[in-house]
């Protein structure tokens, strides 16, 4: 018998560890676009972390927060790449 809350806690722990490894690239990245890629990856991981936290806390409203976070993540990526390409928004 698997305790699903323990599984969710372990997955959250591994993902937070991955986020800290991505912060290394976001801080040390040689150019601006390396930081953009790192922020994009961190945002994708954050969506999953928010949904898993909602399941652990038995509060399913976290899923709405994750939906809005996905929208903001896409907007951030497109705006930053437009800034890199044209030099202005």
């Amino acid at each position, binding site marked *: 018998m698997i305790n699903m809350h323990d599984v969710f806690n372990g*997955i959250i722990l591994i993902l937070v560890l991955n986020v800290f490894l991505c912060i290394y690239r976001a801080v040390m990245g040689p150019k601006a676009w390396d930081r953009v*890629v790192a922020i994009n*990856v961190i945002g994708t991981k954050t969506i999953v972390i928010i949904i898993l936290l909602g399941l652990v806390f038995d509060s399913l409203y976290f*899923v709405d927060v994750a939906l809005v976070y996905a929208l903001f993540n*896409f907007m951030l990526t497109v705006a*930053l790449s437009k800034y890199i390409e044209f030099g202005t928004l």
Partner: protein
Amino acid sequence: MELIDFIVTALLLGGTFFFTTATLGLIRFPDLFTRLHATGKGDTLGIGLILTGLAIYLGPSPTTIKIMLILIFVLLTSPVGTHCICRAVYNQGIKPWKKGG
């Protein structure tokens, strides 16, 4: 319930494996294009596996519909974002990385 728990755990562990692979590529690869090659595919597949597992775990409910909505949205927009960054940097005149030079 036992079998569903095993399936959900396997899907979650598979998604975590792909997320870890994407992070490893982001840290270790030498160039922007190679880093995008690692993260663009690894992140999309990882979030697809994890959200599919959570949808199976929750069963038919309104929350499952929201999770499938997030899954469809991310599957549509993650490759688009990757392509946006790649095109912006390539139009700056940055050449892709080659071995030995």
